[in-house]
């Protein structure tokens, strides 16, 4: 807006200058015309014309009078009848002639004056000359005559006659010349008059233009003054209204005005800071001198109208107190005046808040991490003894005990299992909560996983006299890619709850496809006690679970963490969940989970038994590290059996020492060791030494480690074994890492190895023998084979037996055989277990393998027992 005005003003200036110039020009023209008019009006010239017309007309009159005088003289002469003209007449004639004579002289002189004005026509001059000459001749005659007589008169008359025409013509010509001159004068006057008129009007017009321009400019100036004034007033008003500290400065940074906010923030009154440079007031000296401050001034200068820049600085108040501020500098322009508006905001409160937030966040993170650590350590510690307890109880259960004892042991066993589940669940929840991204995706069969869980919880269900029914409306062999662990957590959670809150009822587990091909829906419907509407709301809203409110019903069964794990698992899987329930009418929990199509599995190579057993043990050295001496011993014995040269270390430091000195190919690391733990040991080994390129395998009972791949990889760990380590698993791993065999699928989980087993893990047997002597072992072996016989019977009457029951039996056998070290048997039983329900066509093959395994195991055990008995007897 102000720029256009400026343009207008300069245009006006140009117009003004032009106008004034034109006025001057007009004045000059006017003057010129005036001068011309004056010239035309020179008195003699104009005057002459009027008088000359008179004079020339009088010439003719005088001429005629002379002629008349001559005629009268003639007449008088005649009358008097004398020879001489009478005196009176002659005197009269002389008088007339004198008059005529003087007239001609006047004409002459006027002719001269006329000729001054301009050229006279030739004719005029000629006539004039004629008249003059004639006059002289006449004068001669009249003057020289003594006695005027008739003859004289005749002469005079004749002479006069000669000049009649010229006189007349002279008159006419004079008039013509005079009128011509008059016309010229008139036209000149007219011309110059009109010129003057034009000039006059133009001058008037120009002057009025000038006047208007000046008036407009004045108005303009006045308006600008008003605007400036207005802007100043607005500025003041704004300043007063802004509660923050606001300062207006001019282009040099001198303070023009400030508001109450400045007083509040800095302690300066308005009049105290007026005219002071803003940076001198705002910033402490050091920061002023600092180059940054001057740079900021340059920033301020580089602003265009309306733009602003925000900077953070340390300001200083009147008392020398320093505090952080945020300054917004805005550039305003009013006409030529540059004004800066500084808005200053104290950041003290903000900073304090930020610091507090940060502190809280850090402490929260620390707390979370501590909890996480605690839980994982706890679970690790818990699992190890729990495993032992479970194992011991398992073995004990195989003894033929009194029903009472059996029952008690079963209770203890279940309790231990539950505790283990608790620990697992707790850990899983924490894992999922804190690091959901770690949960692995893998190929799995949803129906298989679900069936596993169902079987696992069937005993618990039976305790409450509940039956679990599964309905799979999907292809049971279908394999997809997803997160089976989470699925397992979800379903086991739901199922446990269903079992917990149902008595003498039926629990249905239904797997269907929802909406599209990559979404499954699982429903768990129970005929239990149902859930109150308020409680339903609480469940949905992440509140505490039901178990707390129903303390009386809660036992150590089921997941004490309620539905938290379930919800989290479902959400991480990317699914939705819901529930429907009516008090007294049971509940219906469902969830959906999306999956991806199964990834292609690399080819598995099945090695047959002889090849494996006879494979030449490559000259590899293995280092085993474990702080637990029994475990270490066991490992050592396994390695010996496998014919692998090995060294043992009972601490991280020892292991590092050994690894540095000796080139090992494989290092087996226990993760949970005091002092230097597995990670640290791995890191150290990897640094330098002969074993820095070795394959590092961690084995641990700590479930978190398998999920802590990132940390493991960072430490340099290549693979993980789960405790309890079976010889099978160990051998497989070692073979895997020492040879050029293609990678095996799911090599992480020791349980999934499909390589055929050696028949009996003799170290386990030895271990068991060491625990309770060979006599203790015998009953175990007997019970094992009782189980297999039962199974055999069941298999033979396959059509009658419940597949579910078969599956359960096989499952039990797997555990027992594993415990005993009958690895082949365990494997065969596992194969049967997995296929008994799903794929009957494969059954015969597996059953055959199973039967063979039984036979082989029997004979092997016989041999072993014999051996030991011989030893005992021998010793």
């Amino acid at each position, binding site marked *: 807006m102000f720029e256009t005005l400026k343009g207008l003003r300069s245009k006006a200036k140009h117009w003004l200058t032009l106008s004034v110039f034109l006025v001057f020009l007009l004045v000059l023209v006017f003057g010129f015309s005036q001068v011309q008019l004056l010239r035309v009006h020179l008195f*003699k010239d104009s005057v002459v014309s009027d008088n000359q017309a008179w004079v020339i007309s009088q010439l003719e009159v*005088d001429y005629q009078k002379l002629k008349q005088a001559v005629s009268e003289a003639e007449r008088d002469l005649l009358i008097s009848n004398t020879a001489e003209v009478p005196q009176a007449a002659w005197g009269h004639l002389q008088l007339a002639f004198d008059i005529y*004579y*003087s007239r001609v*002289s006047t004409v002459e002189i006027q002719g001269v004056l006329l000729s001054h004005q301009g050229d006279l026509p030739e004719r005029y001059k000629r006539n004039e*000359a004629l008249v003059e*000459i004639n006059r*002289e001749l006449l004068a001669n005659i009249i003057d020289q005559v003594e006695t005027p007589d008739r003859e004289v008169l005749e002469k005079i008359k004749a002479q006069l006659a000669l000049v009649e025409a010229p006189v007349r013509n002279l008159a006419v010509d004079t008039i013509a010349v005079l009128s011509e001159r008059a016309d010229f004068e008139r036209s000149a006057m007219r011309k110059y008059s009109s010129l003057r008129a034009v000039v006059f009007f133009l001058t008037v017009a120009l002057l009025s233009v000038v006047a208007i321009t000046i008036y407009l400019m004045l108005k303009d100036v006045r308006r600008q003054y008003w605007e400036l004034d207005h802007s100043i007033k607005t500025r003041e008003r704004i300043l007063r209204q802004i509660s923050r500290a606001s300062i207006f400065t001019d282009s040099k940074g001198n303070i023009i005005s400030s508001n109450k906010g400045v007083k509040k923030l800095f302690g300066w009154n308005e009049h105290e800071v007026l005219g002071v440079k803003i940076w001198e007031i705002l910033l402490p000296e050091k920061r002023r001198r600092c180059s940054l401050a001057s740079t900021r001034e340059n920033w301020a200068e580089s602003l265009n109208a309306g733009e602003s820049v925000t900077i953070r600085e340390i300001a200083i108040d009147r008392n020398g107190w320093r505090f952080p501020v945020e300054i917004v500098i805005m550039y305003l322009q009013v006409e030529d005046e540059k004004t800066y508006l500084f808005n200053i905001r104290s950041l003290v409160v903000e900073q304090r808040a930020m610091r507090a937030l940060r502190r809280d966040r850090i402490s929260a993170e620390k707390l979370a991490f501590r909890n996480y650590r605690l839980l994982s350590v706890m679970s690790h510690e818990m699992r190890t003894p729990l495993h032992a307890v479970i194992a011991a109880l398992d073995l004990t259960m195989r003894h033929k005990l009194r029903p009472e004892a059996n029952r008690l042991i079963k209770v203890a066993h279940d309790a231990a299992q539950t505790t283990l589940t608790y620990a697992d669940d707790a850990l899983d929840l924490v894992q999922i909560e804190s690091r959901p991204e770690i949960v692995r995706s893998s190929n799995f069969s949803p129906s298989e996983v679900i069936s596993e869980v169902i079987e696992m919880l069937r005993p618990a269900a039976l305790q409450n006299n509940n039956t679990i029914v599964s309905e799979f409306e999907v292809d049971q062999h279908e394999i997809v890619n997803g997160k089976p662990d989470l699925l397992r957590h979800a379903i086991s959670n739901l199922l446990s709850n269903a079992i917990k809150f149902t008595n003498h009822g039926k629990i249905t587990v239904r797997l269907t496809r929802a909406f599209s091909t990559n979404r499954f829906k699982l429903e768990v419907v129970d005929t239990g006690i149902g859930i109150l509407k308020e409680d339903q709301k609480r469940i949905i809203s992440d509140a505490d679970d039901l178990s707390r409110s129903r303390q009386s019903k809660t036992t150590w069964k089921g997941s004490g963490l309620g539905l938290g794990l379930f919800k989290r698992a479902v959400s991480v899987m990317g699914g939705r969940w819901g529930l429907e329930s009516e008090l007294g009418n049971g509940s219906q929990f469902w969830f959906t989970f999306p999956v991806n199509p199964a990834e292609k599995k690399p080819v598995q190579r099945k090695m047959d038994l002889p090849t494996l057993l006879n494979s030449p043990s490559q000259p590899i050295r293995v280092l085993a590290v474990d702080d637990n001496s029994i475990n270490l011993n066991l490992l050592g014995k396994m390695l010996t059996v496998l014919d692998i040269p090995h060294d043992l270390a009972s601490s991280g430091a020892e292991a590092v020492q050994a690894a540095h000195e000796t080139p090992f190919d494989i290092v087996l690391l226990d993760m949970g060791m005091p002092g230097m733990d597995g990670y640290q040991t791995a890191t150290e080994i990897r640094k330098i030494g002969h074993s820095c390129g070795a394959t590092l395998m961690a084995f641990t009972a700590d479930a978190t480690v398998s999920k802590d791949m990132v940390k493991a990889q960072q430490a340099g760990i290549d693979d993980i074994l789960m405790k309890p380590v079976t010889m099978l698993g160990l051998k497989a791993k070692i073979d895997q890492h020492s040879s050029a065999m293609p990678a095996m699928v799911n090599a992480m989980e020791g349980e999934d190895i499909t390589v055929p087993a050696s028949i009996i893990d003799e170290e386990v047997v030895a271990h068991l023998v060491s625990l309770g002597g060979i006599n203790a072992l015998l009953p175990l072996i007997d019970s094992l084979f009782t189980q297999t016989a039962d199974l055999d019977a069941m298999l033979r009457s396959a059509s009658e037996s419940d597949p579910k029951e078969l599956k359960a039996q096989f499952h039990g056998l797997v555990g027992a055989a594993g415990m005993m070290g009958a690895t082949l048997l365990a494997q065969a039983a596992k194969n049967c277990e997995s296929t008994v329900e799903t794929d009957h066509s494969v059954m015969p093959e597996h059953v055959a393998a199973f039967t063979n395994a039984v036979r082989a195991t029997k004979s092997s055990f016989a041999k072993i027992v014999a051996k030991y008995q011989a030893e005992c007897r021998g010793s």
Partner: protein
Amino acid sequence: MRRAWIAWAAASWAVISMALMAHMAASEESSDEILLRLDNDAELFELDRAALEALPQTRFETETIWTEGKVAFSGPTLMSVLELAGLSGQPVEATAVNAYKTTIPAEFIEKDVPIIATRMNGEAFGRRRNGPLWIVFPYDSERRFQRELIFSMSVWQLVRLQLADG
């Protein structure tokens, strides 16, 4: 042709001027002649040169439209002459020898102006030179004398002054 004409004109002009001189001289009148008559309706006064030149003489130089160059006119003021007849302060009618008459209003007759010129450049001048008496104003001196009215009142060959009618 033109040159011849100019030569002839120049020659004739020379002749004329010489003749002029002679003839103007030739027409001088005698000193006793009555030059001017004053008529105040009661009395007729007759003045000759001597009488006129006995009055206080006024002299001024001026150019006129009837003469060439600056001429020094001298003579009594018209006022002083009219006073002889008691005609001062009244409009008078001036008559020239050719019966030309004009009325001169009283306001135009001032104390010093006009004069009745009796001499031009100190010399008396005859009829052939617009004389012997000529009412002359000092045209050059003031603008107000440079107009038609004054010219028409500049009567030459003056013979009579009388009280104007009406």
